[in-house]
């Protein structure tokens, strides 16, 4: 590796890191409690599932004898909301009897105006609702878009790309720096700067793959809105071509959800629905209930297939798998959230996040507390593995 190459990669590492570090620190700090959102939500839930019926069936079941109908569940959810509010989503917990219903003032209401309620299909009761003023909601909004909507999401996506560039350039610089040093070295007897340089390199090296996967999947997640719009403009438009030019179906003409679900299940035997998107939202057309079915294996259960049901008449009009970019988004979610391998994986996720915070913090310290401000000085430090620094 030539001196010029080191200098180029050093400048890439320096500037990509400087620009993204503050935002990455915010994302790590807000992401830490979000890893355990299920556990925290369970602790703060106001209601409870009916224990007698809990193991009997799952939230989307059509056959469980004691379950309330989907139409009845929707009516229950709407009674708690102001008059005129409309349903947007109905989602099912396919491990328990729980389900959620999201409502809003209009069919195309933005996320900030939506209300999400959890209900138990066994008892028919509301067992909780999302509190938009709660700490977890504030953390989620900060982590997702910094309360700036789509521009905020795309900005954080750009920070994620800079983070990936910082990782790549860091790996390139690792080679000349470690040429004469053993792996994992932390020179505790040297100056504080060298010690933190070693912490930065060691922790950055071991968290490399995890940070790259979480960073890259985070970038894909920030593209959720453009991806949904692209799906709507292409595949969904093709599936609903026969409805083109018609006005939006008013909510008072929405037909039975149970009838629509029965038709969808008949068209997709053996699959469990994950959620229903109501007409007019970002996941459906203006005339359809879109029932999204999970695949039947652990891997494919994250890859969704949409069945479009005419919302007025309850008939299946089209079935189509999500396109590759939709599937990429679906697979990127668990890989970013770390919520797919039980509590031990979540604990490891939290430890790796903490290690990443140390890498980011030590990088900031090394930049702010630099002794030699010149690029040539940093290049010499990298070439020698900081072995020329005086002992403390």
């Amino acid at each position, binding site marked *: 590796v030539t001196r010029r190459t080191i200098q180029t990669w050093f400048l890439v590492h320096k500037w990509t890191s400087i620009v993204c570090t503050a935002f990455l620190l915010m994302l790590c700090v807000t992401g830490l409690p979000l890893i355990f959102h299920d556990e925290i939500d369970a602790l703060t839930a106001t209601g409870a599932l009916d224990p007698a019926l809990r193991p009997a069936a799952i939230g989307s079941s059509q056959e469980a004898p004691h379950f309330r109908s989907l139409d009845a569940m929707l009516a229950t959810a709407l009674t708690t909301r102001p008059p005129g509010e409309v349903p947007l989503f109905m989602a099912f917990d396919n491990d328990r009897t729980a389900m959620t219903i999201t409502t809003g003032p209009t069919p195309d209401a933005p996320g900030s105006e939506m209300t999400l309620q959890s209900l138990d299909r066994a008892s028919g009761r509301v067992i909780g609702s999302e509190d938009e003023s709660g700490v977890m909601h504030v953390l989620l909004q900060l982590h997702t878009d910094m309360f700036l909507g789509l521009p905020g999401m795309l900005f954080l996506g750009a920070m994620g790309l800079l983070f990936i560039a910082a990782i790549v350039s860091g*790996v390139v610089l*690792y*080679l000349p720096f*470690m*040429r*004469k*040093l*053993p*792996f*994992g*070295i*932390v*020179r*505790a*007897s040297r100056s504080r700067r060298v010690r933190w340089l070693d912490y930065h390199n*060691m*922790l950055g*090296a*071991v*968290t*490399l*793959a*995890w940070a790259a*996967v979480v960073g890259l999947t985070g970038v894909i997640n920030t593209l959720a809105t453009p991806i949904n719009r692209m799906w709507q403009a292409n595949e969904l438009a093709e599936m609903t071509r026969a409805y083109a030019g018609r006005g939006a179906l008013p909510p008072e003409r929405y037909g039975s959800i149970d009838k629509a679900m029965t038709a969808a299940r008949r068209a997709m035997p053996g699959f469990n629905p994950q959620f229903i998107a109501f007409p007019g939202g970002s996941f459906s057309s203006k005339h359809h209930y879109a029932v999204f079915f999970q695949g039947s*294996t*652990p*891997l494919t259960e*994250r890859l969704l297939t949409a069945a479009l049901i005419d919302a007025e008449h309850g008939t299946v009009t089209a079935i189509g798998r999500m396109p590759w970019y939709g599937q990429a988004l679906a*697979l990127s979610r*668990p*890989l970013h959230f770390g919520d*797919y*391998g*039980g509590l*031990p*994986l979540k604990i*490891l996720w939290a*430890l*790796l996040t903490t*290690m990443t915070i140390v890498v980011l913090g030590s990088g900031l310290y090394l930049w702010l507390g630099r002794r030699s401000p010149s690029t040539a000085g940093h290049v010499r430090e990298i070439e020698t*593995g900081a*072995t020329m620094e005086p002992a403390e």
Partner: protein
Amino acid sequence: MSAVRRRRQSSWTVFAPLVWTALATSFGLFIALTGDGARDLLAWPAVGVPVGVAVWALHRRRC
């Protein structure tokens, strides 16, 4: 702490620990996606490799 090596190491020697750690982590991340139970049991130690290596390095620092 072992003495600092003065001899230049090959690129593979420098990168091998990173490659093995990254492969273990990636294996763990993706095997957990494909199922529960035994696959989770494989995933936890694999994703735990970077944490284990960091603990080893920090412990060695004090020796």
